[in-house]
C-alpha cells in the first residue's frame, strides 16, 4: 500500500500555507499529524493532487490556557494536550477523552484540531467540542472566522472548513462553577473506535440541584449532537435526580447505525447505560467529589 502521487508543499508560514490552499482549491489537502489522512492515502481512499504539510508551522503548536478555556493550535499533538497540567486543570474532559483516542504512538503525532477537521462521528474529540460548545478558527487569505461546534460538523467526515481554509486552532471553553464532566465508552479492544461512547456535562445551581445536564454520544449519528436531558433528570440534588429517565431520553433521541461491529439496537442500549454512568459521574464531580 503506497500513497498515490501528489505535489508536496511545505510552507514556512501560515500566510504561505493560505496562499497555497487558495491556489490548489479542492485539489489541496492539509497534512498535520497524518494519523487519519495517511491511512486514507495508503488505502487509496483519498487522492489529493496537492498535499500541504503544515508540520513546519511551529507557530501553530501552541496550547494556551486562559479564563475562556483551552485553545489548541493546529499542530498541538494529542499527547502534548493530554500531558499538560494547566489544560487538565482548566478543562479536565480533554485529558479524559484524549486517553481514549487510539494508542500513545498515534497520539504522539495526531493533532487535536486534525481530529476535529476529520469530523469522524465515531471519534471522541468532535463529541467533546460539541458538548463544551467550543469552536474552530478557520483562516483563509485575508479573513478569519470562528465556527461554533454546532455548525462545524456537517456530515460524516465533513466539516464546515472550505478547501481554501486552514483550521488554525480550536477553543474548548472552560467549565462554569459547580460543573462536572465525564467520558465513558465501550470498545472491543483498547484503543479501537468505540462501539458507543458518551461525554456528559452537569451543572448544579446554588442549592446544589441539577441546573443543566447534557450529553453527546459517539457513533450515534452522522454528526455529534448535543442531547439536553435537564428536563428528564429533574431539578433535584445529584443523589436523587432521575438519571435512569435521562438515560432513556438519550436512547430515544439518538440515531445509531448498524455495522459489522454492532447492531443499532445494541449501540442504543450501550449509549443508555453509558449515559447514566457518565451523568452520575459528572454530577458527583460537580458536587465537589
Amino acid at each position, binding site marked *: 500500500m503506497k500513497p498515490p502521487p*501528489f505535489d508536496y508543499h511545505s510552507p514556512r508560514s501560515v500566510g504561505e500555507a493560505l496562499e497555497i490552499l487558495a491556489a490548489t482549491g479542492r485539489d489541496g489537502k492539509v497534512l498535520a499529524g497524518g494519523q487519519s489522512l495517511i491511512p486514507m492515502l495508503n488505502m487509496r481512499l483519498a487522492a489529493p493532487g496537492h498535499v500541504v504539510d503544515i508540520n513546519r508551522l511551529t507557530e501553530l503548536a501552541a496550547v494556551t490556557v486562559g479564563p475562556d478555556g483551552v485553545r489548541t493550535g493546529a499542530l498541538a499533538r494529542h499527547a502534548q494536550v493530554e500531558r499538560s497540567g494547566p489544560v487538565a486543570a482548566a478543562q479536565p474532559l480533554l485529558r479524559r477523552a484524549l486517553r481514549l483516542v487510539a494508542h500513545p*504512538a498515534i497520539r504522539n503525532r495526531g493533532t487535536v484540531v486534525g481530529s476535529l477537521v476529520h469530523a469522524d462521528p465515531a471519534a471522541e474529540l468532535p463529541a467533546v467540542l460539541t458538548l463544551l460548545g467550543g469552536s474552530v478558527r478557520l483562516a483563509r487569505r485575508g479573513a478569519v472566522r470562528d465556527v461554533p461546534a454546532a455548525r462545524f460538523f456537517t456530515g460524516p467526515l465533513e466539516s464546515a472548513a472550505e478547501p481554501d481554509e486552514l483550521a488554525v486552532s480550536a477553543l474548548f471553553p472552560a467549565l462554569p462553577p459547580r460543573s462536572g464532566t465525564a467520558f465513558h465508552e465501550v470498545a472491543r479492544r483498547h*484503543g479501537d473506535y468505540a462501539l458507543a461512547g458518551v461525554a456528559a456535562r452537569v451543572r448544579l445551581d446554588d442549592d446544589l440541584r441539577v441546573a443543566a445536564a447534557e450529553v453527546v454520544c459517539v457513533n450515534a449519528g452522522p454528526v455529534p449532537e448535543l442531547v439536553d436531558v435537564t428536563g428528564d433528570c429533574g431539578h433535584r440534588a445529584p443523589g436523587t435526580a432521575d438519571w435512569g429517565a435521562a438515560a432513556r431520553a438519550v436512547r430515544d433521541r439518538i440515531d445509531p447505525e448498524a455495522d459489522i461491529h454492532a447492531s443499532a439496537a445494541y449501540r442504543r442500549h450501550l449509549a443508555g447505560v453509558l449515559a447514566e454512568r457518565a451523568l452520575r459521574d459528572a454530577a458527583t464531580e460537580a458536587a465537589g467529589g
Partner: protein
Amino acid sequence: MGEPVGGGTDIAITLTVNGVVRRAEVPGRRLLSDCLRHDLGLTGTHVGCEHGVCGCCTVLLDGEPVRSCLMFAVTADGHAVTTVEGLAGPGGELSPVQRAFAECHGLQCGFCTPGFLCVVTALLRENPVPTEEEVLEGVSGNLCRCTGYQNILRSVRRAAEIMAEER
C-alpha cells in the same frame, strides 16, 4: 521548500538516523518506513499493516514512538530517528530491553519485535517503574500474533529490573 514539488520530483532530505546523519532523495509520497528500509537499507523496521494498526513499524522520532508508516519521509526532514538497529550499544551489546526480551522469550517469529522494542525503550525511559496498567497501556498499540503477550509483559518488567540494577 515553499515551491511545490511535483509527484515525480524527488526531494533531498537529511535525517539523523541512529546518531548518523543520512541523506536521501525521495518523492513526497515516500513513507518514512519505506525510506528507512529501501533508501537507507535499514530493514530492521518491519512493515505490517501500513495503516497504523499493527505497530510493527514503530520507530522513535526525536525520542517519541511514532508509526513510520503514517509519516512521510519529507516531514521527518531535519529530525532524529531511532530504529531497532540503534538500540544496541556502540559495541553491539544488547540494550536492557533487548536482553529482557531474549531472556523472557518475549519474541517468537520476531516480526513485531522491532516495534515492541522501540515502544518499550521509550516507555521505560519516561517511566522507569511503570504499573501493570501503564505497561498494558504502553504496549496496547502493538500486535503480536505469536506470544499471547504474557512473555512480552514479563519482558517489560524484567527490562525495568535490569535498568534499575544497572543504574
